[in-house]
């Protein structure tokens, strides 16, 4: 079936549709990871976005039950250069095509993904409309893209957070980073705010002897404190942190309690906002598994998985309040913060990986060590 992608600047790409037959709108971003499309698809931080994979061949290893970061694909649409006609991997249970179709997500293949990527690099992330339905007029799609409200200032978290608190008990199982000895005994209690949490964050906490309670994004601070956690994790999530004033004030209340807090991605941005800093939108964000991040204290570089569109403005950070612990070597953006007088730190990237290198995994150890046992 035919498929069309139309961008707000009027550019139209014609290719082959796959997955669901649908017409959708969203923000178009690209991801440069060469492995891990299933984890990317299912990462709730992509809610509201269509993801262009820059790697040539996608779908080669199908999809399986293990490599999911949430219970369903989260992307609005998935755009690839060459969709694999066959699935070849010992763990595969289903083809990518069938998986997307089953969940109502349209895909587009046989388009010049490099051309789209270059366009986004030059013009920034764009609004787009994609259709795999018949009889759709490209011009109408361009209009749809332009008419869409976009993600800026919107609360996308409400779309992906859980409805009620729950306990998470599954660890990484056979997929521990090399040399890591999991500690199965739940010695500490951690509450994770679900702003669209990736399951790998939960798994890495369980692997380290944490009893994990996941709570909905809008849970008030005192409710969380009533669970008497040893620490709180502010998860990743989609969209613009500026659209979440309520959550920011909850984070501020938590910070005041002195409880150990670990922020990841959106969680990191929320901490920054809570201490009075501002966030801003990057031209086309960071989406990939190869971002070099330098840790100021040691000078060491980690290759990290990243997926974010907003970043913390370092000029708005009060140096008496927080230190910048990590920076991105590609563009110098803030990648990590630590509060001076409280056991709170946060990173913009994804120490839980999946997809991506395990270089930053020890951050979980650093944090968990601070929790009472």
């Amino acid at each position, binding site marked *: 079936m035919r498929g069309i992608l139309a961008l707000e600047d009027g550019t139209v790409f014609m290719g082959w549709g796959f997955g669901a037959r649908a017409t959708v709108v969203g923000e178009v971003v690209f991801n440069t990871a060469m492995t891990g499309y299933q984890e990317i698809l299912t990462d709730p931080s992509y809610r509201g976005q269509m993801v262009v994979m820059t790697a040539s061949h996608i779908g080669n290893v199908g999809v399986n039950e293990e490599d999911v970061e949430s219970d369903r694909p989260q992307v609005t649409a998935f755009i690839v250069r060459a969709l694999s006609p066959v699935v070849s*991997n010992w763990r595969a249970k289903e083809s990518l095509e069938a998986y997307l179709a089953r969940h109502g997500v349209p895909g587009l293949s046989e388009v010049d993904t490099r051309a789209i990527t270059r366009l986004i690099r030059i013009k920034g992330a764009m609004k787009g409309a994609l259709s795999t339905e018949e009889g759709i007029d490209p011009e109408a799609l361009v209009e749809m893209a332009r008419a869409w409200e976009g993600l800026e200032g919107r609360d996308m978290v409400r779309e992906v957070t859980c409805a009620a608190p729950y306990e998470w008990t599954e660890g990484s199982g056979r997929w521990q980073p090399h040399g890591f000895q999991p500690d199965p005994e739940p010695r500490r209690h951690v509450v994770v705010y679900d702003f669209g949490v990736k399951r790998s964050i939960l798994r890495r906490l369980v692997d380290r002897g944490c009893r994990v309670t996941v709570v909905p994004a809008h849970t008030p601070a005192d409710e969380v404190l009533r669970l008497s956690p040893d620490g709180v994790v502010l998860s990743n999530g989609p969209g613009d942190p500026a659209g979440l004033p309520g959550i920011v004030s909850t984070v501020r209340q938590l910070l005041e309690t002195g409880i150990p807090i670990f922020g990841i991605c959106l969680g990191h941005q929320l901490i920054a906002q809570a201490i009075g800093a501002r966030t801003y939108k990057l031209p086309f964000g960071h989406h990939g598994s190869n971002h070099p991040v330098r840790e100021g204290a040691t000078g060491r570089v980690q290759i990290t998985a990243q997926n974010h569109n907003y970043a913390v403005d370092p000029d708005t950070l009060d140096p008496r309040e927080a230190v910048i612990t990590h920076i991105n070597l590609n563009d110098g953006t803030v990648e990590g913060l630590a509060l001076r007088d409280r056991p709170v730190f946060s990173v913009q990237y994804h120490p839980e990986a999946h997809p991506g290198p395990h270089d930053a995994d020890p951050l979980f150890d650093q944090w968990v060590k601070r929790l009472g046992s």
Partner: protein
Amino acid sequence: MPRRTDIRSILVIGSGPIVIGQAAEFDYSGTQALKALRREGYRVILVNSNPATIMTDPEFADATYIEPLTPEIVEQIIARERPEALLPTLGGQTALNLAMALYEGGVLERYGVELIGASPKAIRIAEDRLAFKEAMERAGLEVPHSILARSVEEAVAFADRVGYPVLIRPSFTLGGTGAGIARSREELIDRVDLALRLSPVGSALIEESLLGWKEFELEVMRDRHDNFVVVCAIENLDPMGVHTGDSITLAPAQTLTDKEYQRMRDWGRAVMSAVGVETGGSNVQFAVNPRDGRMRVIEMNPRVSRSSALASKATGFPIAKIAALLAVGYTLDEIRNEITRRTVAAFEPALDYVVVKIPRWAFEKFPGADPTLGPQMKSVGEVMAIGRTFKEALQKAMRGLEIGAKGFEGFPPDRRPADLRQALACPTPDRLRAVHDALMEGMSVEEVSALTGYDPWFVTQMAELVERERALRRYTLSTVPAALLRHAKREGFSDAQLAAFWGCSETEVRRRREAAGIRPRYAQVDTCAAEFEAYTPYLYSTYEESDEAPPTDRPKVVILGSGPNRIGQGIEFDYSCCQAAFALREMGLESIMVNSNPETVSTDYDTSDRLYFEPLTFEDVLNILERERPLGVIVQFGGQTALNLTMPLHRAGARILGTSPDAIDLAEDRGRFSALLRDLDIPQPEHGTATSIEEALDVAQRIGYPVLVRPSYVLGGRAMAICYDEETLRAYMREAVWVSPERPVLIDRFLEDAYEAEVDAVADGKRVVIGGILQHIEEAGVHSGDSACVLPPYKISRYHLQIIEEYTERIALALEVRGLINIQFAIKDDIVYVLEANPRASRTVPFISKATGVPLARIATRVMLGQTLEEIGFTRSPEVRAFFVKEAVLPFRKLPGADAVLGPEMKSTGEVMGWAERFGHAFAKAEMAAGDALPLSGTVLLSVNDFDKGNVLKIARDFHRMGFRLMATRGTAEALRRVGLPVEGVNKVSEGSPHVVDAIREGRVQLILNTPLGPRAYTDGMRIRQAAVRYGVPLLTTLSAAAAAVQAIRAIRDRGFTVKSLQEYYEEALRR
């Protein structure tokens, strides 16, 4: 942390001659590193015995030693230069082994030289299989079950326990020499026996077989802060069991989930720590079981490698350069990514294309050699292709191989094997063709995959190509729908392939395609999948919508490279192509390189201003010319590959720079060329051409036997033979299937016992200047590329040299040569004959350039662009004030079964240079550098043919006088006894044990002189030669080489070797 300031000078060891398993990739790596280190202000000292390299060009180091890579010689260099550090990780296994020998011999300590880039401990762990296994197990990594055997009995006991097949890998040998698979106890006994002998430490690893497991490689880097990156993940199409150098490989890996890939990455990092590689690049190989994902670490190389060169070309990440910078103290985050300019080397490249590498083999040159691929590498070169998809890259790689394939296609009808299943199951160079034909016949993807061990994902891609081919064949040029044509081009089908489907010409397809608006676009290799802007125009073609790096408005010149290395066309041509790029840069012109060989310096993105990594076919090159609209194209430096494109490109309207296409054709066309020689009154051997057996016999009858026969338009003496009688000529003609009226057989009178010489000269149309005259040490009948030769000539009279000079001038002027010309001469009975003339760069250009200090290819480039030799200031032949000997390096040891005999067909893979003030020393150094150090005492085995029985006497007497014992087979022994020489007689193999091969195996022979007889290798001689190769005894197969050896041994006994850098030599020459 900035670079180290406690080091000022660094010794870099090159990899020596090109051999199977160690090729041009080390020139690429070394050259990159030298440039980087000098830019940092270090004094760099280089030692390498290979004169054909760019790295040994004097401008790339402060002191360049072209000397044998032995501990004794390098110690002399260290004593003279007193470097503070030694960087051993850029010259392959040769450099690592040499560095270890220097370390273990106490030389490094004695002179206070620090090993940088790799510690002795790390080298030992990586090389010593048992230590490696222990280190891996300590780090919690899984390796195949194995034992280190020091005896055959130990090996058998182990294999009986774990079951057959098992792999055998001798410790400390190059490119898998001596490695093999044993499927039975008998095979095991035989192979272990050999492996233990080949291993310098007398041990071999016996290992459980992982046949059928998938193979992956990670190219990784680590700096002294323990920062770690994976530059590239390479997947082998061929499963475990085929040496990775002989495997078809691709990047990025296609069949791993992220979890599996990250586990591999974790292991890669753990391997680096466990081995103790503190800084630099390494290659780590993994096996993965496709049924359950189990993984094993196979091996690691703590240095740059063939794979790292491939990874650098595949990603744009210059591993060797960065490894050199890490070795002097930088960290990855301190090194800028030159492609994006704003990012740093501490990152992992993202690819939005697929790279496919296919090796190139040369079995056609080695009758008898087994073409089955296994754990010992046998290929001599490789092609790399870049496409947006695997299909496109595979098709481009196939056509870039220059083996007659126009893309992914099957066997030619006459070569089609009877049993396709067998051809699929057995890894050989033709396996892809078998896959094509099997799929075309309707075999299922599952079955092809099961037989080949190729992952079904790849076979499916190939099946789709076959499916597309079927669809295309249903149409003709006029009926094919534009949409289908576009799909075909997007999948990499070449115009020539489509023309073959439709029975029309390639040009017609091109016209049709262009009329439909289907033209290639060019994309950049940018390390980052377009995330950042790229500033280096490193380009590949694809059929996409967007086009990048548009041509500049500067005046520009396109240089055609020489494609995959093969015997007869190797690094020497790449050397000249690079020189052309340097010359263009000096002249302020934009240089544009087109090449498909990932091993080379020419395909480094900063050698030229623009690099097109493309197959060297008419279609691909013309596309570039139409896009770039250059002043012209340089075809003289790219060997036969570029030369073959000259006429088609000329006809298509391209401007060929330098010597005209017509003159090139004249020199190649036997009839036209011999008419020219007649006009110029220059003697040539009597000759004729033939397209049938009858014609051939007539010609031979007329000119007399023996005759030299060969096809027209070939390089490296492919299918060249000497026929001594009618019977062998008939046999040759029957096998010459390529004969056609356009491609007749050339038949020349063979000048027995002639001396041969060759000349490289530059001409500008008015003036001809000779760069050098080389005399061949072997007599006529040995291909010029295989013959040892010497500059200046040591046995040609002034009178004959003058004639050679005069003929050179006459021919070059008559051909209106603008650029380089190489002419081959033979001298017999006081007559100088011209054998052939080639108006292009020859294999000897780099050698002569090193010996004289005159960059011939650069001068030729300037001439091609219109400067006169006078303007350039090159009007007199350079004087040569020492003896420079070039010796060929032969691959027999790597190709079991091949006969180690020299003949008119070239067989050598590489060359070395030895130079000294006396001929004897120069020759001895060359032999030593070629790996066959001449013995100073011991026993010489003589076994010569009847023609040589007279002339061998003087040589035997000389050996006797120097105190050597003589051993000879019956006929030779009788001849020696007749003149009163003491000789020990020994049986030929056919005469029964104890025989000559026993003597060789027992180590009782230190030097062998065996001259083969006539056209065919007789079994007895062949056994001797094979034994010589197998047991590493220096072998001489011509009397003139033996005479030179006598001089050499005498010279060394008289006075030992001295060394001197080229820079000092040039300076002294200037002062004189």
